[in-house]
């Protein structure tokens, strides 16, 4: 009955799901996934007029297709509601195509059987989706723990050796300084992990206050100035110190500090340049660094927590700085973005409302990768 319309049904289903995905680039093969096979299973099932439980091997084959579909949806960043919606779209498109293209008005019993079949597929797909998502989430968590543990080992080595040195030579000032630095580094690592986790969970302490660019940038650039001096770089900032804005000072300091530290860290020679667009509605901080060319694709990944790109080889860090900056900007209704300028370096910019009225909870990770979201 539906065999003659399979291509039509599949195409209409694909158009509808693509529209639901919005403007996002999605691999069409992955999006289409096993839908054609699934329609064949459905046609067989309807032709036999069989019951779901009585179809033995056939049932095994179509539940496998549905399960694989659920797993593909985890990879594509769909949520469960979207997964169920897709099957609902398939049911509607199928019935509508039969009516509009084939002039076939399905009987109530046939509609009920199609709904049974699709309901079974939803159950199988959701079960596989949940299992796959849980597995993925455990894998990512283990990877994050491994990453943090790895980063803790360097300062821990120094702290252990400095403490031993002090036991042997009490009063050794150099060992004491190294011990202090190691503890500061350990504290910084743990603070960053905690900040990242609270931003990710949407537990944002945010209190917008009146401040000036001068106050913000002076504090946020202090550490970057120090590192730039040690590396023989120029850190040049151009802005009007008296420009007033209302933002959460801690969150904004965290954004600017992380962006500036990152710029200085990956610049080995030349100048890191900072300018500010001081608008009526928004304030935009531009940071131009002189790091070797990074592709736009690599840059888009730098805001992902615990990401360590090829440029980071040999550089100490948590892989959290830019993820924190991005979440802290989003929490205030702003954003952080980056663009490669080829061999001339990279351009990072932070956009914030000039007057942050209220803070918004940080979206879950990968929210922007989900279909339908902007």
């Amino acid at each position, binding site marked *: 009955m539906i065999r003659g319309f399979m291509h039509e049904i599949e195409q209409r289903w694909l158009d509808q799901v693509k529209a639901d995905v919005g403007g996002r680039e999605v691999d069409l093969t992955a999006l289409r996934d096993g839908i054609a096979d699934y329609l064949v299973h459905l046609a067989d099932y309807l032709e036999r007029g069989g019951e779901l439980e009585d179809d033995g091997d056939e049932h095994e084959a179509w539940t496998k297709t549905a399960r694989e579909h659920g797993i593909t949806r985890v990879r594509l960043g769909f949520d469960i509601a979207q997964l169920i919606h897709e099957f609902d779209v398939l049911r509607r498109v199928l019935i509508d195509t039969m009516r509009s293209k084939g002039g076939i008005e399905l009987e109530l019993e046939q509609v009920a059987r199609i709904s049974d079949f699709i309901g079974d597929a939803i159950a199988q797909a959701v079960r596989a989706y949940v299992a796959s998502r849980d597995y993925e989430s455990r894998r990512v968590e283990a990877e994050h723990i491994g990453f943090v543990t*790895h*980063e803790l*080992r*360097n300062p*821990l*080595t*120094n702290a*252990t*050796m*400095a403490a*031993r*040195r002090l036991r*042997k030579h009490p009063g050794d000032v*150099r*060992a004491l300084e*190294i011990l202090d*630095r*190691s503890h500061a580094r350990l504290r910084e690592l743990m603070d960053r992990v905690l900040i990242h986790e609270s931003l990710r969970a949407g537990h944002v302490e945010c209190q917008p206050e009146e401040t000036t660019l001068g106050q913000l940038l002076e504090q946020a650039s202090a550490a970057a100035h120090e590192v730039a001096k040690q590396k023989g770089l120029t850190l040049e900032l151009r802005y009007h110190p008296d420009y007033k804005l209302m933002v959460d000072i801690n969150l904004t300091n965290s954004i600017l500090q992380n962006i500036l530290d990152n710029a200085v860290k990956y610049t080995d020679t030349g100048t890191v340049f900072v300018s500010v667009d001081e608008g009526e509605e928004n304030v935009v901080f531009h940071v131009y660094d002189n790091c070797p060319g990074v592709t736009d694709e690599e840059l888009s990944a730098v805001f992902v927590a615990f990401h360590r790109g090829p440029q980071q*080889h*040999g*550089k*100490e860090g948590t892989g959290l700085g830019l993820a924190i900056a991005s979440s802290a900007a989003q929490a205030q209704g702003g954003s952080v973005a980056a663009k490669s300028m080829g061999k001339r370096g990279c351009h990072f910019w932070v956009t914030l409302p000039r007057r942050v009225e209220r803070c918004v909870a940080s979206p879950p990770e990968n929210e922007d990768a989900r279909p339908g979201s902007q």
Partner: protein
Amino acid sequence: MRVLVVNDEPDLLELCKFVLEDEGHTVEVTTSGHDVIALVHRFKPDVVLLDWVIPDVPGDVVLRRLRANGAVVPIVMMSASHRADEASRRLGADAFLPKPFTDEELLNTLTPLGRAAREARPGER
């Protein structure tokens, strides 16, 4: 024993130097992977302690270059990643020192290798 320590972190270099010099060893340090081959020729270490992660030339590349240049000096690779253990031995490292380590672990790893290399060299007992 003469020890060459290669690491990009000045604090760790200083600590290794403290520990080894306290035991009467002669120590040379560098933060650059580029310098290693020249230093091996000039300083003639009995053992090299090399970090897996060095910004200018990665430790595995330095190790490969040393072996390709015919250097027979014992090399101890250090890293916070245990995965570097097998990889570095495959590339010709003689031992692996996982971070974090203590001064005893440092000495226990370097001393037998350095002593053996020194004794194997004619006129250097």
